[in-house]
């Protein structure tokens, strides 16, 4: 199965690297190399076709590793601390998820676990895996399948929204209690910044940048 598939890919390559289709309106363009800071836009619908990707695979790999470290910090350290009469209550991400599960809101607990923990974790792990091989010019085992998985899980990371949620919660809780943002909150803020940088990276470029190893 894989042998004929690969040969079609090779014939397709020559044909496709020169062409590009706008995802939003199906207009076909001849692809042009972009220089730094350039953005190709569709003339019909105005959507972005392609941006110049200035991060090398090595830089991307470094970025993923950074995101992983910050992600661990954001999940381990308490996010908000509430002090009342000398006792302190810390909220961590998993504390929140477990609490919601116990309070008859299992759906919310599952949503939070998926969008704040499992999908981001899976995404980072996959990108890290693909890049660890890719920066040495090789396709990682399972490259094709993992790239497809990555495409489907990409929209389900909501850490940025959670950061805003932390801010709102602090203000709301402050009406009644003495609450402070903890280390985890700052880690989350850093994570939001990193994720924003990361979302500017078009991961589809990996198809072109990491060539197939010739059999």
């Amino acid at each position, binding site marked *: 199965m894989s042998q004929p598939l690969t040969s079609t890919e090779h014939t397709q390559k020559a044909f496709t690297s020169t062409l590009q*289709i706008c995802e*939003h309106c199906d207009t*076909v363009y001849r692809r042009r190399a972009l220089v730094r800071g350039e953005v190709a836009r569709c003339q019909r619908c105005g959507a972005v076709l392609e941006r110049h990707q200035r991060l090398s695979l090595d830089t991307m790999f470094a970025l993923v590793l950074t995101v992983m470290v910050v992600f661990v910090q954001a999940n381990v350290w308490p996010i908000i601390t509430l002090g009342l009469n000398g006792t302190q209550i810390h909220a961590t991400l998993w504390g929140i998820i477990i*609490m919601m599960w116990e*309070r008859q*809101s299992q759906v919310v607990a599952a949503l939070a676990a998926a969008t704040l923990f499992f999908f981001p974790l899976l995404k980072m792990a996959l990108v890290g895996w693909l890049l660890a091989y890719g920066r040495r010019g090789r396709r990682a085992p399972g490259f094709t399948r993992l790239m497809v998985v990555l495409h489907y899980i990409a929209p389900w990371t909501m850490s940025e*929204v959670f950061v805003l949620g932390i801010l709102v919660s602090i*203000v709301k*809780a402050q009406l009644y209690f003495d609450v402070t943002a903890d280390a985890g909150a700052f880690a989350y803020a850093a994570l939001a910044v990193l994720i924003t940088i990361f979302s500017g990276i078009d991961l589809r470029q990996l198809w072109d940048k990491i060539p197939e190893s010739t059999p």
Partner: protein
Amino acid sequence: MSALPRAHELGVIGCHVCGLVCRDTGVQGAACPRCGSALHRRMPGSRARTWALLIAAFILYIPANFLPIMRTVSLGDVDDNTILTGVVELWVKGSPDLAIIVFTASIVVPMMKFLVMVTLLLSVHRGTNWARTQRAKLYRLVEFIGYWSMLDVFVVSLLTALVQFGFFSEVEPLPGVVYFGLTVILTMLAAMSFDQRMIWDCKDEDD
């Protein structure tokens, strides 16, 4: 003569998943040679699926707004908040600027999503080429801001985990928050299942 040829005019298909430009062989069930995903000009059943998800989302949106999402117990004082009263409370007691953000995320954005998606679906049904660029922009906006509506769900979760003092004071999630979370997920799925290329599938009269 159109200066901007579309995929079907050139006999090619763009892969939904990896973006590869493939020759359209006309074979049913053809797969992308690069990523193995099924190739099709338009997502099959896109309109029906979008309608279904949107209607389901709207049904859940009603209890999401009318049922309270959070109960605050403070020194025996029980207070049930819906999404709207939560915004009002934040406006009155806390900070109006944050109230505006929450109002936008939990009320304006979902409402706008419903209106925009219904407009898009109806206009696609009619095959009109009215305001296509604007409609395409609206779609991209909805897709981009959709998930920020989860804000209130996360706020309720955080407060629940934080405020736990037994009978002194407590924050408890109420069913409204579950409905609201599901509404957000369903509207996101509806936006994703809408094939925005349909907006452009009508005769070009302007060029």
